[in-house]
């Protein structure tokens, strides 16, 4: 390799490392600062203590917010998986009235800003007389999560050889068992990945929640957002670290079952794996 070639390579490596550092900086700093002994947030942390994690547990408003967020997120994950499976099957296999409309809505849902969806839902719920509750929040989050679930299921179904279903039927499997033994395994990864993504999307959402919730019912991100306006102690870094852990679990599971890159629409070829 020529000298300029090597130089480009080294510079490229340095640049990539800097980008990497930039990408993880806010997360790494948050996690590290959560261990500080000082009563204000500082980096590098001074001393090491788990005091702020204990502090989180001593704040009932954070615990109740966590419960609301987790409950809504679990429900959103489960419902997204089921609705996504049914919707994906319908779009992939059947012609029915409303199919084109559903496809259009599913693909354009991504394009509508979350904040606009939030204010739309606020005004629509008010018009319907629906009071803010974990249920309305769940409904709102489904709009964010179902399109992903459907899309992942569709990708899973596209990878399934329809002949395999015919083969199973020919071997004596009635329709339900064909579905159970052949179709479902083909979309298993999509369902698991989609559910975890739905969970994390719902759990992390601030924009929609800000519009849908009231002061008595605050999700964890809303609670943190409000808390940050007035307090600057390391409690938030401790909660943040816990939320990062949640996200890491989701990353590992999604990468294992569908691939994070695929979730965000990268072509298979970008992954370079398999």
């Amino acid at each position, binding site marked *: 390799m020529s000298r300029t070639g090597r130089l480009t390579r080294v510079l490229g490596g340095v640049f990539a490392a800097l980008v990497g550092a930039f990408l993880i900086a806010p997360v790494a700093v948050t996690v590290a600062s959560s261990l500080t002994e000082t009563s204000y947030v500082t980096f590098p942390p001074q001393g090491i203590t788990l005091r702020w994690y204990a502090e989180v547990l001593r704040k009932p408003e954070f615990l109740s917010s966590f419960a609301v967020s987790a409950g809504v997120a679990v429900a959103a994950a489960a419902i997204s998986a089921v609705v996504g499976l049914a919707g994906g099957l319908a779009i992939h296999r059947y012609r029915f009235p409303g199919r084109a409309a559903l496809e259009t809505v599913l693909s354009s849902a991504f394009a509508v800003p979350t904040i606009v969806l939030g204010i739309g839902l606020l005004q629509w719920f008010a018009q319907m007389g629906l009071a803010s509750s974990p249920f309305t929040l769940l409904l709102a989050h489904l709009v964010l999560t179902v399109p992903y679930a459907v899309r992942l299921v569709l990708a899973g179904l596209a990878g399934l*050889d329809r*002949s*395999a279903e*015919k*083969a*199973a*039927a*020919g*071997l*004596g*499997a*009635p*329709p339900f*068992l*064909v579905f159970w*033994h*052949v179709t479902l*395994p*083909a979309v*298993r990864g999509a369902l698991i990945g989609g559910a975890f993504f739905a969970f994390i999307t719902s759990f992390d959402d601030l924009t929609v929640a800000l519009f849908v919730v009231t002061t008595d019912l605050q999700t964890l991100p809303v609670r943190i957002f409000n808390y940050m306006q007035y307090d600057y102690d390391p409690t938030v870094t401790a909660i943040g670290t816990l939320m990062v852990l949640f996200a890491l679990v989701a990353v590992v599971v999604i990468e294992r079952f569908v691939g994070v890159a695929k979730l965000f629409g990268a072509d298979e070829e970008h992954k370079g794996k398999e």
Partner: protein
Amino acid sequence: MTSTPLTSAKTPPGTDAPRGRLRLDGVRKILGGKEVVSAVDLETEPGEFLTLLGPSGCGKTTTLNMIAGHLTADGGLIEVDGRDITTVAPHRRSMGMVFQSYALFPHMTVAENVAFGLRMRKVAATRRGKQVAEVLELVGLDGMSERHPRQLSGGQQQRAALARALVIQPDLLLLDEPFSNLDAQLRVRLRDEVSALQRRIGTTAILVTHDQEEALAVSDRIAVMADGVIHQLDRPQEVYLRPATDFVAQFIGEVNALDGTAAGGGTCEVAGRKVSATPVGQAPAEGAAVRVYVRPEVVRVGSGDQGEGLHGTVRDTRFLGSRIRCVVSTPAGEVTAALPFDARVPAAGEEVTCSWRPSDASLAAR
């Protein structure tokens, strides 16, 4: 007759009635407003290897799917051993099907794939294991049972798919272009293996293919299909040497098609000369317009004018390895002969006569 348990189970003791007699009577299918299969009649002997041969879109796969039950016929009758199965759901038929894509269940091991049909039949686990092991040995996949399909080569996947279809001891073995995803060498080897295996087990097999050589090599009989219709249903030699229609003649290999007038008794007049051929079906009435089909391989080229046969001048000869291709210009048009490489090679410009045995050519109304 045979020693494998698989086959002995096929004909239970005390019942001599052979199984696997398929009958199609006027079967039709309309897809997307177009009749893709029109009134197909077909009957197999038990244990027969029958091939549906034709170009893509000729209706052969649709016919197979109706036999398997993946499509329902829009008219006509499908019977297996006297039982009407026209509208029976696929899982209530007993068909072992092998697909072009193999269609193995990707999340199951080879053994699990093969055992699937037995599980659906609620065969006890121990017996299941034994039968799976037997059939895997039969197809030469012993030792591969714990692999997943993606860990197998194309040929191995095809064997696994075959094992999966055979283990349920189906009434019929349906093969949907099973070799077309394999490379040329493997294709030949596997097709010979499958045909030998089928003969040994004695299951009636229906093969769908567009590959005429494959059809000729493995079939007891071939049904040549085009535009949803069977053009000819006969033994391979018959279909090859004595094609019934232009389509059959053109689709399978090279052919000399000579137009003439029927002269009665299996002869006809072509460009003023008497030419012999075997009529396909009913002999055409004297004076009727007919066409004679002659394969280049059966054409003999003799020097000079020999009175019978077509007289002409050699235009071109070419050495092609196993054969010598000789084109003769005759009053009836060009006649191509494929001569064995040790034959005397006529030179270009030489006067010759092209002849053939009457049984090696067919005569059909035009």
